[in-house]
């Protein structure tokens, strides 16, 4: 019997119309179509979704946690980048 493993896929599910697709997890499948069917069975069997995206994991380029210092720490002490220093008129409800 062949023991070659199926590639890994990342699964994104939109739980309601109007919401964005969210990362739900990953699973194995031979191709995109099978990944969709597997995702339907593994992640939406309790009525969790209205839409599924699948992306083969190898197509995702991820940042390296070792680089977190240079990538993210410089932003920690720059509160002025948040737009929290403006006085908003009361009429503006959703900012």
């Amino acid at each position: 019997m062949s023991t070659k493993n199926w590639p890994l896929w990342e699964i994104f599910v939109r739980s309601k119309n109007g919401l964005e697709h969210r990362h739900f997890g990953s699973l194995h499948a031979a191709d995109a179509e099978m990944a969709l069917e597997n995702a339907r069975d593994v992640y939406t069997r309790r009525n969790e979704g209205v839409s599924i995206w699948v992306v083969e994991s190898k197509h995702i380029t991820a940042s390296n946690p070792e680089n977190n210092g240079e990538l993210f720490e410089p932003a920690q002490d720059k509160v002025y980048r948040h737009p929290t220093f403006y006085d908003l008129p009361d009429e503006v409800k959703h900012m």
Partner: protein
Amino acid sequence: MKENLYNYILGIADNSLILGQRMGELCGHGPSLETDIACTNISLDLFGQVRSYFQYAAKVSGDGRTEDDIAMLRKERDYKNVLLVEQPNTNFAYTIARQFLFDAYHLAFLSELQKSTDLTLSAIANKCIKEVSYHERFSSDWVKRLGDGTEESCVKMQEAIDDLWTYTDELFHQTEADKAMVAEGVGVDVTKLKEDYYKRVHRLLEEATLKVPQLKWFQKGGKEGIHTEHLGYLLSDLQYMQRAYPNMEW
């Protein structure tokens, strides 16, 4: 009690019950986590359908028996499922072949049952058909994958189709209850589904690079309660709790 209607409902429901039990056997034993869950989902869909049918049958019986009594407390000869659905999970190719050969029939059957003059049955059919469309999509995809897959998967898929082919003709046999219900506009005339069924199956086998078995003689008997050796073992699993602890509930 409306004997014919009762028997007719059981004839439909027992197929789903026994196939559901077979698919449920793969829970925790599927070839991969993903297919394991897929098979178990199909099993749960089928059990859900069975409940609707048996609840209705219990009402039709009018003698106080419940859906559980009907599911769990009959003897082997009283089960009316076709022989196809009781065949074992010899390997994954058999599981898929059995599922597809039944799904192709089930889908066509439910599509006709939706037109039944019995409103309960047509409502159940209407609810089940979406589930069964997915079952058919799943199983036909896998027939293609295995048939048109590796040399080994093709050999195994062909073997499963060849072995199970002998059970397909029975799907289109009519029992006395069938004939009576067709006459009343309640039942589906399964003899009329046969031609399209074999067309659909032949087309898929061709797509899957598989050969259509050439067979002149077919097995039958399940609908009359005469089963293959496999059903007894299946029922001893299915009924174990009710037999060991009568009237238990949980």
